[in-house]
Each structure stands twice: as C-alpha cells, then as structure tokens.
C-alpha cells in the first residue's frame, strides 16, 4: 500500500499544461480560419492553376500567293514528338527511353530544358518527325503515357531558295523579340516571321491561336479536356510577285551571285525579287539545326544577305542616266549637245580616263549613253555641278530607303558637299564631282536602281516599290507615284538613248525579237584599277556587272535592275540575264549576240565564265558577234 501522496502541486502545474494545450489548439484553428476563410479565394486560384492547363493550338499562318493566285508559302501538317511531365527526373527517364526508339539530339533537348523555367508544359523532343518515328511512338502510347505526338502546322515554301529573301522565313519567337515592341503580346513559343514578308507582315499573317483547357494530374498528364476553342487561320496574302517571272529570274541567275529586281514602272509593284546565293527557308520552319545555321553564317558568299535592299554597290555607268536626266531638265545640255572624247579628260590637274583608250570622238547624248562614254558625262557633270546633281539623284530615290515593305532596308549613300562636311568635316573638291558624274564614290541598292529605271519608264514618276497586293482579299492601300516634274522631251531623249544601248550599244545581249528593250549597262569597281591590273584573273576583284532596263520601250510594263557580282562588265554579265528573263516574260526569243536561240523549254544558259572575265570592261561587242 502506498503512503499518502500530496498531488496538489502537480495538479496546479497541470493547469499550465492544459492551458498550453488549449491555446495551441485554438491558435491552430485560428490559422485554419485565416487559410481557408480569409485567404480561401487566393488558394482556390492556386489550386485551379495547379490542375488546369491552357494549351495553345497554334493557328496556321496565312498562305501567301503570287499575283495570279499561285502558291508561294503554305502550311503542311507535321508531327512533333513531345514529352509532357512536370517532374524533371521523370523527364530525364523519358528522354532515355525515347533515345532508344527514335533519333534525336538528347544533349540539345537537355540544353533547352535547362533554359526553360521550372514550369514547362511539354517539351518538343523531335520536331517534324517522320512517319516511322510517329508509328514507333504511337505504338508505345500506353507504356509511356508522357510521350505523345502533336500535329502542328509547319510553314513550307515550294520554291525554296527561289523566294528566300522576299518571303523570309519563320521561327519560334526569341527571348529578345519577346521584349520588343514589334512582338508585344505574342505568347512565348509562338512561331513568328523572322525575315522578309513573314516578318514585315507578321501580325497580319498570324492567325488566332486556339486553346485547349485541360485538367492534368500531378505528373502533368492530361486527365480530361475542359473546353476547346478552335484556332483561326491567318488571312491569306497576295503578293505582286509573278511566279513565272520569279522562276525565270532564278533560272537566269543560276550559279551566279547578285540580285534581280523587277518592278511595274506604273505602280511600283514588285514583280520579281531575287537575291543570290540564297538559302532554303524550309530549313528554319521546324527550327534550324545549329550546324545548318553556322554554315549559312560562315559562308563567304553571304547567302543570308538580302542584296536587293541591303547590298551597297557603286552604280557605275548606270548613273549616267541620272546625270543625263538632271542635266537635260536643268537645261545644261540638250540631246544635241556634243562633246569630244579623246579617251580622257584633263581637268583640275587630274587625268580622268574613258574606258576606251583611243576615245569615242565627238559624241552626242544618245551615242554617249549608247557607248557609255565617260568623257561626255565628265563634261556634263562639271557643268551641272554637284548640288544640282545631288538634288536630282535624291529626287530619284537615291541615298534613302525606298520604303519597300521589307524589313532592314539600307539607304545607300550619295556623297555631296553637304554630306562630306557633316560626316568627314572636309570640304568638297571639284574633282570629286567628275567621279560622281559616272557613278563612282557612291553606293546604291539594286532596288534603288530598278526604281531609277522605273522613273524613265514611267515618264518621270517615282513610285514606292511594294510587294503586298492584298491581305485576305482586301487590297493594301499604296501611295500613288509622285511626279518628279521632268519635261516629257527630257524623258523621251533618255529613253531613246537607252533603246539604242540595247539596239546597237553596250547592252545588245538583252535584245529581244519583236520587243524593244531600253537599258543601260554599268560596272561597279570593287578595287582600284591598279590592283585589278596586278591580278586580272582573280574573280573576287572583278567589278560587278549592272544592267538596268525596261520594256517594251514605248509602253513599259516592267522595269528591272540586274546585278551580277564580279560579272566584270554589265553588258556581258547582267544584260544576258535581263534578256533571258524578259524573253520569258514577253514570250519571245532573246536574239542578242551570244544568246543561244532558246527553245521554249530550254532556257538559255548563262554566258560562260571565262568569256566574261576575258571581256574588257564596257567594251562594245562587235556587231557580228
């Protein structure tokens, strides 16, 4: 038997324990009140975010057609193998399993995985998978529920390289683009235009993505679909481009670097637009492979460069047309004005040479343009003076972007006293005017030169070149061409002279049967004469060949500028390209010297390389050739 115990001190202390217990329970209850009643809405939202996923259904971009409704860019269904999971370790395991089934770059996928935030919905393991891979994955749908095949629209360009620089290409929006104004409010992961028309009209071409709201479990796997809105296709676009002409251009430029732009001189509509060498824009559609990208970037031929609007070349003798128009308009000369060409002009203590050492003798404007006499235009330029020449050059769209609806257009550079003082803080020397007179010491883009041809062709109207004709069937408004105020007889005289260039002058290889072509040749020096003399055979030192033209001469429907890089003389390199293209356009035979009589199906091959390199610059081809 136990002795009596005094339990009272213990019982007093027990009260403390009881109080602690009750307090703790009440505090807990209070905290649940806070969580569930006061903040219930907040947590309900979090729970909804947990279980609901909004998956975009990408909308196909609008198809792009040429002016006659022929397809230039379309969408095809492609298959993406995707892995959907919320937990990284599951994902790594999935990748390991997939690696045994299909061929893909595990390290590249893991690298992308590292870039994304902690919350990803699905990871594209293999874009544009082939049928065999799709079958392999689909067959294991039950074993690997986290792996699935998505059908996504993929941009396809049937002409490939043929329309690379005009249409551009598409790709997933980059982080940098996400921050820019142009791409504001576009969802991450969206496919957007990255160049060309695709970039310029990105918003217009994008459809409205659809959306699937699904309930997912903690592994990120779909449990069921809650709602679905279908995507809306982007509206189709119609370009001014003419597929036939574009194809003819691509063919004619085969194997050569350079650029061809053809405009409708009456409106500025771009009928053909080509930059060579080009790249295959289809490579970008499902994400370009790093090796393909680095090959494009490192290629010394610069296939990514958009030559018609980004290339800056000296216009050379083609500039004589600008000089002639300005001098006639300013009444410095008349078509009958004659200058004597002894093969050089000695002025300002300098000897300026003509390309024909023995000289052209006494020539009028028409013959000077036809034979491309330098001395004639030295004299014209000196009399016209740099200020007026500069004003007219700029009036005809030089030294400023043309405003074509393509991104990243360069402006070219026309040097004049004002520019020289501002940029170099040096005053103008009169002798510089002499060089400017024949298109030296300046750069133009091929598109600008095509526009100059269009000015002559249209009787003195400057139009803004534009590619987009209509979006969704609705015509895109364009500014009407601006009249430069050139007198009709001025334009007529220059046009007549340009006709004689093709008929009997330096541009005879652009001659067509039954269609009068007006043109002007030119060559743009790449290096000084001295260096060229030292190494006559090196192709990369050869001047670029120019040919600007329009046809038919009396009722022009097309104005064109052709540039053949390192083509030496425009008459032998660029003029044949123009001849071949125009022949195809008008459905007639090219009958210029050296042009093979073209069968309807066999296009004329470009003039052999050796022959061009050997031809002297700006030489007049013999009439019998």
């Amino acid at each position, binding site marked *: 038997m*136990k002795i009596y*115990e005094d*339990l009272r*001190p*213990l*019982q007093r*202390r*027990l009260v*403390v*324990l*009881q109080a602690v*217990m*009750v307090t*703790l*329970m009440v505090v*807990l*209850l209070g*905290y*649940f*009140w806070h*969580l*569930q*009643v006061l*903040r*219930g809405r*907040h*947590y*309900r939202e*979090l*729970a*909804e975010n*947990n*279980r609901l996923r909004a998956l975009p259904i990408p909308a196909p971009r609008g198809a792009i057609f040429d002016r006659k409704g022929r397809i230039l860019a379309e969408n095809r269904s492609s298959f993406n193998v995707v892995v959907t999971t*919320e*937990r*990284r370790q599951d994902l790594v395991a999935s990748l390991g399993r997939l690696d045994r089934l299909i061929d893909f770059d595990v390290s590249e996928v893991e690298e992308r995985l590292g870039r994304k935030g*902690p919350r990803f919905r699905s990871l594209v393991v293999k874009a544009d998978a082939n049928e065999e891979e799709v079958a392999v994955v689909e067959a294991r749908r039950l074993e690997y529920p986290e792996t699935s095949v998505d059908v996504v629209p993929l941009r396809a360009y049937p002409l490939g390289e043929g329309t690379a620089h005009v249409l551009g290409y598409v790709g997933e929006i980059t982080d940098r683009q996400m921050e820019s104004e142009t791409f504001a409010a576009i969802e991450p992961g969206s496919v957007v235009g990255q160049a060309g028309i695709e970039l310029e009209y990105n918003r217009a071409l994008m459809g409205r993505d659809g959306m699937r709201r699904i*309930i*997912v*479990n*903690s*592994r990120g796997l779909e*449990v069921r679909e809650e709602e679905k809105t279908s995507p809306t296709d982007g509206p189709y676009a119609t370009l001014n481009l003419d597929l036939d002409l574009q194809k003819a251009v691509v063919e004619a430029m085969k194997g050569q670097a350079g650029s061809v732009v053809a405009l409708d001189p009456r409106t500025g509509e771009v009928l053909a637009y080509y930059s060579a060498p080009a790249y295959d824009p289809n490579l970008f559609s499902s994400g370009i492979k790093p090796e393909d990208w680095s090959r494009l970037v490192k290629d010394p031929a610069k296939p990514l460069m958009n030559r018609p609007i980004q290339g800056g070349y000296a216009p050379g003798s083609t500039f004589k047309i600008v000089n002639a128009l300005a001098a006639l308009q300013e009444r410095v000369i008349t078509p009958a004005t004659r200058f004597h060409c002894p093969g050089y002009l000695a002025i300002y203590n300098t000897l300026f040479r003509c390309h024909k050492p023995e000289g052209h003798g006494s020539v009028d404007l028409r013959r000077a343009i036809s034979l491309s006499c330098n001395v004639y235009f030295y004299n014209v330029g000196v009399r016209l003076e740099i200020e007026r020449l500069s004003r007219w050059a700029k009036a005809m769209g030089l030294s400023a972007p043309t405003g074509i609806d393509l991104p990243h257009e360069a402006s070219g550079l026309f040097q004049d006293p004002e520019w020289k003082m501002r940029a170099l803080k040096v005053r103008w020397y009169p002798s510089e005017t002499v060089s400017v007179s024949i298109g030296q010491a300046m750069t133009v883009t091929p598109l600008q030169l095509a526009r100059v041809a269009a000015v002559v062709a249209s009787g003195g109207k400057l139009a803004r070149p534009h590619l987009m004709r209509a979006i969704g069937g609705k015509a895109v408004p364009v500014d009407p061409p601006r009249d430069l105020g050139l007198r009709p007889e001025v334009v007529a005289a220059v046009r007549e002279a340009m006709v004689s260039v093709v008929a009997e002058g330096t541009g005879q290889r652009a001659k067509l049967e039954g269609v009068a072509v007006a043109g002007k040749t030119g060559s743009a020096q790449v290096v000084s004469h001295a260096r060229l003399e030292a190494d006559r055979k090196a192709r990369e030192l050869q001047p670029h060949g120019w040919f600007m033209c329009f046809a038919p001469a009396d009722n022009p429907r097309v104005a064109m500028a052709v540039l053949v890089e390192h083509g030496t003389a425009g008459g032998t390199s660029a003029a044949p390209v123009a001849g071949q293209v125009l022949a195809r356009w008008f459905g007639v035979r090219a009958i210029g010297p050296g042009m093979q009589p073209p069968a309807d199906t066999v296009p004329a091959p470009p003039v052999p390389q050796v022959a061009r390199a050997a031809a002297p610059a700006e030489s007049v081809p013999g009439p019998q050739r």
Partner: protein
Amino acid sequence: MATVAIDRRLLHNIDWGLMLGVLLLAGIGVATILSATAGGANAGLNVKQVWAILAGLAALLVCVSIDYRRLVDQSPWLYGLSMVALLYVLLFGPRIAGTRRWILIGPAQVQPSEFAKLVAALLVARVFAEVRKESLGLRDILGPGAAVGAMAVLIAAEPDLGTAFTLVPMFVAVAFLAGLRLKAVLAMALLMAGLGGLGWAFALKDYQKSRIYTFLDPSLDPKGAGYQKIQSQIAVGSGGVVGKGYKQGTQSQLGYLPARHTDFIFSVLAEENGFVGVAVVLGLYLFVLWRALETAQLARDRAGALLAAAVATLLTFQVVYNVAMVAGLVPVKGLPLPLMSYGGSSVLSSLLAVGLILNVRMRRFAN
C-alpha cells in the same frame, strides 16, 4: 486488484465519452483514407486501416485489463526490450526510402519507435513518481533524461526525427509536473537549443537541412522539398469554408498532395470538408486531449497522474505538430496524425496510448 480479467466495476468506470471521441476520429480517418486513395495504387488501404483499428481496440482492451501500476513497475524491462528492438532496426532493419524504421514480421511492417515512445512515458512516470522532493533541480532529471535521450538518439538515427523529437516535450512536461524548478526548465530549454545547434552542424543529413531551408522559403525549390508544404497549403486554403466535397478535392484526387493518406491526411480533410470539417475534427481532438489531461488531474497517485500527463503530451505534440505541418507552419517531418493517419503501427500505438489514459482514469477510485 484486477490483474488480467477485467473487473466489471472497472468496466463501468471506463470513460465512454473519450472512447466515443476516439472512435469518431478513427472513423473519420478511415473515410478520409478512402477518399485519398480512391482509384489509385493505394486503393483498399481503408480496409487495412479498419483491421488495424480493430486490432488496436483489442490491444487497448488488453492494456486496460492490466493495472497501470504494474505496467509502470515493469517499465525498466520494457525499456530494455524497446532499446534492443530499436538497435535491431538500426542494424538489421530493411532500408525503405532511405530509412531503417521497420521490423518485418511476416507480411506486416512494425515500427518499434511508435511503441518505444509509450514505454518512455511509462519509464518517466515511474522514475519521477518515486522522486519525492518539493522541487527538483537539473541533477534530479539527469538519470531519466539520459535514458530518454538515449532512446531519442536511436530513433533519430533511423532517421525518424519527428518521433524522436516527440519525446522532448513529453519529458519536459513530466519533469515540470514532478516539480522541476522553473530555472531548471529554462536551463534545459537552453541546453536543448545548444544540442539542436550541434545537431544541425553535425547530425542533420542534407535532405533534412534542405527541408528546413525550404520551409523558410518554399519558393527556393517549388518542385523539391518545398513542394509538399506549398501543395498542402494550397489544398487546405482552397477548401474554403465548406470544402470541395467528399472525394472532390482537386489537390488530393489529382495527386498533387504527397503522402496524402498518411502524414497529410488532415490536408485532404481540410480540402474536401473545408473549415467546417477542420473545426469538427480539431474539436474532437481538443475533447480527447482535454479528457486525457483531465485524467491526470483525477489520477489517484503520482505515477498515474504523470503517466496520463506523459501520454497526453505525446498525443498533443503529435496532433499539434502534424496539423501545423499541414498548415505550413512548421517544417515537414514524417509525423503521422494519431488515430487518423493510415498506418498500422501508428493506429496501434495511438489506441494503446488511449488505453493507458483509460487505464489510469478507470482506476482513480480503486484502492
């Protein structure tokens, strides 16, 4: 003195109110487990839980049939047995999820630490019942402190920090009731803090540290150690006032809640039954724990009072810690909710604990 057979008079003195509360909690537990495991790989565990409860009730019956004073007397032996079992688990137990906590007996997994803590309660009740001083100093608690500490170390080494830590408030509470001076209580608290610091530096495993770091800032690792806390809070909060409905909890049914039928069972309850359900269940726990502490008040002797208080503190700590963990107030530790969480050892141990309380209470008049 009743020994094995139950005295009919004693049966009459069983606290049926307490029993009712306990059975209600266990029943709500089974229903919640049914919801938490529906359709998954764990479906059917609610049936196993019912069997565990029935076994627990049988054990409870055996427990109340033995006078608690005999149990208290035998506590040194039981302590030795427990230590052997804990050592055995540590040395030879199967490794499950990186820990050695279980002994396999046939198809059943038994977790010795669940029972060892009850033995610890018996032991401290015995030791402090025999100390007959007006007030105790630190020196007086050294012996029992070392005994309980050794047990805690073995459990912590499994590692099972949650259960090991359960012993601390139990020991402090009993020492306090036995007359430990307030100064000594403070000193002990300081000592604990110091040991905690040392433990942090040397004993804690990286996953344990990272759990504590992410507890302080769950967004550090929303998919890792902070995941459980965040998901549990979302489940609880999104339950709102009346809950999403039985078996309708999105967090639990879609698998966002980890360990939802075991340690986070309360989270499922809170999501599906809302604040109303939480208030009911916490009310039931308050009632049960209150009756347990009341038993300590009513006990006829020091040993009974200390035993009832020790067991009540064990239960209180587990309930409070588990519920606070579910609410995201304390770091996640593997500590089941007594009576409700799925798990045979936990249910058995909880019902045995109730049995000890009933044992003391029904013998409060007996001489």
